[in-house]
């Protein structure tokens, strides 16, 4: 659809407003993180700080072990995403390519789990893990999400379009089933797996609910949780400190987005 003249300008103006609406708050957040408490309280409408201060960041680093939290969060998200792919490949393969008794039932069971969000399971899971003393461990954060119903489904869908002959040929060549799954089909499914990995990594990196419920101290606490705690300080909301924490929290996600933009967009669009 090509348009010239005033229509084009009007559209660009609208797009500019849109960009401001979505980018503006972030800029405000970053600028806010450099303000001092006085700026926040006395001149809330002024965009620029009276002088750029790193006070807020110093306070954030003083009150929470940022390095550890970022590490915890990244490790947890990597483990989850990695495990999900490792489990989804064989499961998807079995459901897509192998004939066996109970295949329909297994497929149904997997799909049923798509319906059950974490908010439904957290109470029993918390109590289960509590009884074996696994609350507040990395296991509690990773294991429950080790298998992805969605991931299994996506792998199955992708494998359905792989010709059976390929697998037969590989078998004839003497490849073991595991080799076929991980060494042959895996790479073939790279785009699907990349999508799955990205979506899962981002989702779990940002997860607030599960770590909130499953951690009781800072050993395996994650970044979103820690930054949310900044808000609860007791004697007055110090927005500049909260925003500094927020910049640290959203920085990595935005960075990954900037680098992997195309893949993320494709991953989202492909899920239709």
């Amino acid at each position, binding site marked *: 659809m090509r348009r010239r003249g005033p229509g084009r300008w009007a559209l660009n103006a609208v797009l500019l407003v849109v960009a401001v609406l979505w980018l503006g708050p972030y800029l405000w957040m970053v600028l806010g993180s450099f303000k001092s408490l006085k700026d926040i309280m006395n001149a809330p409408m002024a965009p620029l700080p009276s002088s750029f201060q790193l006070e807020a960041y110093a306070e954030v680093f003083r009150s929470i072990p940022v390095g550890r939290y970022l590490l915890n969060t990244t490790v947890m998200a990597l483990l989850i995403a990695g495990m999900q792919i490792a489990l989804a490949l064989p499961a998807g393969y079995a459901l897509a390519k192998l004939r066996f008794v109970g295949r329909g039932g*297994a497929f149904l069971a997997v799909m049923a*789990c798509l319906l059950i969000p974490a908010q439904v399971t957290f109470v029993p899971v918390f109590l289960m893990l509590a009884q074996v003393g696994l609350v507040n461990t990395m296991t509690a954060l990773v294991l429950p999400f080790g298998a992805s119903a969605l991931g299994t489904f996506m792998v199955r869908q992708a494998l359905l379009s792989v010709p059976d002959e390929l697998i037969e040929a590989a078998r004839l060549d003497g490849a073991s089933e595991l080799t076929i799954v991980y060494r042959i089909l895996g790479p073939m499914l790279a785009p699907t797996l990349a999508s799955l990995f990205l979506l899962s990594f981002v989702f779990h990196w940002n997860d607030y609910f599960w770590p909130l419920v499953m951690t009781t101290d800072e050993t395996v606490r994650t970044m979103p949780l820690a930054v949310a705690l900044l808000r609860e300080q007791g004697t007055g909301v110090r*927005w500049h400190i909260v925003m500094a924490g927020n910049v640290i929290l*959203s920085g990595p996600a935005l960075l990954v*987005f900037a680098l992997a933009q195309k893949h993320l967009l494709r991953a989202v669009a492909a899920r*239709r």
Partner: protein
Amino acid sequence: MLRPRHRLHPYLFLAPTLAVLGLFFLFPLALAAYRSVFRWDLLTPPRYVGLAHYERLFASGEITRALGTTVSYAIVVVIGSMVLGLLLALAVNRTGRFVAFVRSCVFSAYVVSWVSVALLWMWMLDADAGLVGRACKAIGIGESGLLTSPETALYALAGVTVWKITGFSMVVFLAGLQDIPEELYEAASLDGAGPLSRFAHVTWPSLRPTTAFVGTTSLIVSFQAFDIVRVMTQGGPTHSTTVFVYAIYEHVFMNLRAGRASAMVVVFFGVLLLLTLIQLWAWRLGRKSG
């Protein structure tokens, strides 16, 4: 379809996945149903109470209130993000660096965490210290704070949610738009159809499956809302933002009522099941005309 090399292979391949899913999704659901007939505060032994929790939940109107709050929130979120998403998709459906930049801006909100967005907007909407909050006060709305008045709090939350997820619907709609073959438009133009008519007769019908997908995804997302409520309003003021999941959380962690929370979980699952059936029906509807 192939025969497995070894009889046990399929079961071995599925075992880890089914074990994890079974242990952490299916089993807990059954456990919740079991616990919902007990009264248990986690510290003292449980006491059997039969269906008392369900009776109390429905009789006291708590379920209706939680559902009502969630549905009001969901309606604003779904309609808002779908309409905005579609409009934005139409606007950015062209090449150009500026357009790509705008696309990224809008989508970036989808990538950051809910906590991030919640904290940012808590500040922005604050009646005393926030840019948007003060601007609104100046034009007469939200005198006592958009997030702290019972009438506006839920809609403020919905607005922030729309801000965050519109990027997702925009991208999905965009992909749907780009799937529409150019020939359909050309044929319509040759028939003398103007831009509005082209939209109504070519674009909209072709987008039906996409619309169904976006609609039901936003619906499910809004029914599972928790982070934003926990960080921004903690269910208040006067319970006006206590959506379903938050109500369950409150019962477990604030009130230590594991039995009642389990009953709510069972009801919640029922609601989700219903929503999914609606999703399937909408999908089938889209398929038929697609």
